[in-house]
């Protein structure tokens, strides 16, 4: 049987990839040239590119401080996510009364947008006394339902006999998670890390509400502030965008294999 040629599929993929990458290229090009985005005709190739817009961003606003804040908050969110989602995901693989109701509750909670719960979330954060703190910013992302289900799906793929054998050998539940489950769930961990990283890194609304001082602002808030205080900033603005994007892109490129594997395993075994 004659196989269909692959070139049409490849051609379509090349065109789609090109369309997806053009905005990234344009942002990068503008960050290097400072060319007005409304300039006509636009230059496809950068004219007189330089990196000084990046230097401007570094010094004209407290970029290192924003970066540090974002890194701290994101690290806290990732650590909290791994801890709480692992525990919750493992618990949901057990049989206990009301388990179905808990799963149903989780699924129904996923239907409620965060904006609808933001006032109670604020009140709880205020009651805990962690407004305008790193913990307060990271709090809503310390556990996410999607990631709980990713862990649940991954844990359910581990053979029951392996867990029973570990239990017979005297391992506690926590040690079973740490020694047996997590080493077999690297894809789920990578997926968790990347998703949490992206959500936390790009979070705007919640930090905007809980942060009260400029010293605690994260990068997305810094970007908004940058736009409000600077003029003639085309190049610096796009340089800022690139500097915000690069860490996320790097993390994704490093872990894309595990990320995709984690998502697909969650899709088929959940």
């Amino acid at each position, binding site marked *: 049987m004659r196989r269909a040629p692959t070139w049409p599929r490849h051609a379509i993929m090349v065109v789609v990839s090109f369309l997806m990458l053009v905005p990234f290229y344009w942002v990068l090009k503008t960050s290097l040239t400072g060319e007005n985005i409304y300039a006509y005709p636009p230059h496809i190739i950068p004219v007189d590119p330089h990196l000084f817009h990046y*230097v*401007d961003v570094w010094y*004209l606003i407290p970029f290192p401080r924003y970066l540090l804040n974002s890194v701290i908050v994101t690290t806290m969110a990732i650590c909290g996510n791994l801890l709480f989602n692992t525990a919750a995901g493992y618990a949901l693989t057990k049989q206990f009364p009301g388990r179905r109701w808990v799963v149903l509750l989780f699924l129904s909670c996923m239907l409620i947008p965060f904006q609808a719960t933001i006032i109670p979330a604020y009140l709880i954060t205020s009651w805990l006394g962690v407004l305008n703190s790193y913990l307060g910013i990271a709090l809503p992302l310390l556990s996410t339902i999607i990631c709980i289900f990713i862990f649940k799906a991954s844990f359910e793929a581990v053979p029951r006999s392996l867990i029973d054998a570990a239990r017979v050998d005297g391992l506690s539940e926590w040690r079973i998670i740490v020694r047996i489950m997590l080493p077999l769930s690297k894809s789920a961990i990578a997926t968790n890390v990347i998703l949490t990283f992206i959500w936390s890194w790009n979070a705007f609304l919640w930090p905007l509400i809980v942060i009260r001082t400029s010293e605690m602002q994260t990068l997305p808030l810094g970007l908004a502030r940058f736009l409000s205080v600077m*003029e003639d900033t085309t190049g610096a603005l796009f340089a800022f965008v690139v500097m915000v994007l690069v860490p996320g892109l790097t993390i994704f490129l*490093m872990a894309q294999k595990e990320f995709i594997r984690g998502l697909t395993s969650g899709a088929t075994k959940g």
Partner: protein
Amino acid sequence: MSWRRILTHRFFLVPLVVALLVAGWNVYIAFNDGGLIAGEVRDRAGTPVPGATVVFFERNFIYYQEKQRTTTDAHGAYRFDGMQVHVGQLEARTADGRHSERRQLRLWFRAQNAEMAPLVVDAPHG
């Protein structure tokens, strides 16, 4: 997982390379952040102009404003010390009303030592 695998894993190597680059860059900065900006003022014929005033304009958020000024020595040389800036403009003015074009100064980091190309005075001071 063995140590060799951990050390050669991309999750270890990429942050390590980034950390090394940052550390190297900071070491370079530490040895070159005296804030020294130096250069010469000449006329169109290339002759050094002694006694000329060189003005440094610092950029704030919207426009450039004068920050500091100095005078050239007998060889037409000038220098600013301890300049905690990374961007600015330089202009030379002479007592007889001539002045240079404003020269844009872009540095790779704040207080970088910089040797400027000569400022050329030729037009009457407007």
